[in-house]
């Protein structure tokens, strides 16, 4: 062997380091891929590797609902209404389902009822999974609503399952107006220091438009993303003023994403104006709407 022959061990080690470096670069490349490609990869993994775990969560969610129904039946049989009255979570869920049933009757077959599942992993706080999908007529961009208004929007659709974002997502935007049609603007999410401080803001309204606290804000239907008339929230106060030409307002949201368990998802060819489908909570006398049952 010559005096300058390479050391085989070191060469092998260098190859390993180069390989690991390439893998690190590959992972950085994933981070910078276009969003569409990232979504395609994510959907592929969800549909293959993670499918059994998502199905397990669906099973557990169903089991939880079934067990709660059995509890109600047993409680009725035993006449223990006092016990059920203390189970506020169950009462809230029942109220939500009853409200949804009422809404389903009004909207007809253009909206499908679905259960909301949360992945609960780091970075997925603003997304949810619903158990309806492409086969059911759900398409990308479909609005997701609760009994009291807009929760979010579907982002990706697969057979039997769809992934959506709620209004706490930084990309959430909705063209909106006051319920009386006097002022228009864009509703967007403003992130707080903590997630609990996320708020909705009605942005870009004209300075001189008369907007007072408590007025209902609904989707305007402009842009064709959301149908006209879905309640979003109520005016809570002025957020900011720019010169004497523009004002922004804080909104008290009608739907709190964290507590939404059952929703309706619009299917293809859903009507473009759904204003009559939501009853004004103040007119119906249910002043606690959007808070009592959702929170």
């Amino acid at each position, binding site marked *: 062997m010559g005096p300058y022959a390479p050391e085989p061990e070191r060469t092998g080690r260098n190859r390993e380091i180069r390989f690991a470096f390439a893998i690190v670069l590959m*992972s950085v490349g*994933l981070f910078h891929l276009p969003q569409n490609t990232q979504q395609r990869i*994510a959907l592929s993994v969800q549909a293959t590797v993670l499918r059994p*775990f998502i199905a397990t969560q669906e099973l*557990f969610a169903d089991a939880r609902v079934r067990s709660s129904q059995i509890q109600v039946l047993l409680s009725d049989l035993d006449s223990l209404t006092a016990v059920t009255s203390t189970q506020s979570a169950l009462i809230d869920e029942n109220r939500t389902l009853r409200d949804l049933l009422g809404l389903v009757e009004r909207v007809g077959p253009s909206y499908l009822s679905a259960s909301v599942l949360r992945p609960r992993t780091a*970075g997925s706080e603003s997304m949810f999974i619903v158990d309806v999908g492409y086969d059911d007529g759900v398409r990308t961009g479909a609005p997701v609503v609760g009994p009291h208004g807009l929760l979010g929007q579907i982002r990706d659709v697969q057979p039997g399952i769809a992934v959506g974002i709620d209004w706490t*997502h930084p990309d959430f935007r909705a063209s909106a107006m006051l319920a009386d049609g006097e002022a228009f603007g864009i509703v967007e999410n403003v992130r707080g220091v903590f997630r609990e401080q996320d708020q909705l803001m009605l942005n870009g309204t004209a300075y001189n438009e008369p907007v007072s606290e408590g007025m209902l804000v609904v989707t305007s239907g402009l842009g064709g993303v959301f149908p006209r008339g879905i309640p979003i929230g109520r005016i809570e106060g002025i957020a900011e003023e720019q010169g004497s030409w523009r004002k922004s307002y804080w909104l008290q949201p009608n739907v709190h994403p964290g507590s939404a368990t059952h929703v309706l998802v619009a299917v293809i060819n859903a009507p473009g104006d759904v204003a009559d489908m939501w009853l004004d909570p103040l007119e119906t006398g249910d002043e606690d709407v959007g808070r009592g049952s959702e929170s």
Partner: protein
Amino acid sequence: MLFPLHFVLHIGFGLGRSAPDLLTIALLLVAREVGLRGASVAGLLFGVVEDSLTVLAFGANSVTMTVIGVLGAFTRDLFVGDSKLFMLSYFFAGKWMRDFLHWMIMGQELRQPFVDQVLAQGLLAALYAALVGMGLVILMDLVRGR
């Protein structure tokens, strides 16, 4: 074993943070066993799977887990042996570094305050992972008859 168990606990049962980060523990264990190539590939795969549930910062977990896998494999050269104290520190440092890197990569608009997410929650999660990891190491030693 740890890979499916992680997703059963986190997604299937919906336990969230109350379940330990078994994916990171698995990666740290793998990194000590299979070397640099295997650890980097395992880190990338684990990261991609976890990223598939992340709409907000896709890729952040991939980069983080790959780097953690590589660093874990390097510890084989730096620290010989697998004493209990070393393994406890290894799991603790690995998990905390994973949370710290993820916090750095995920973007300013998405992350929570450093003190809250990395120092408070991160250190608690690292301690939790270290204890669970140690339990697993002891269990593995018992099974192997050491």
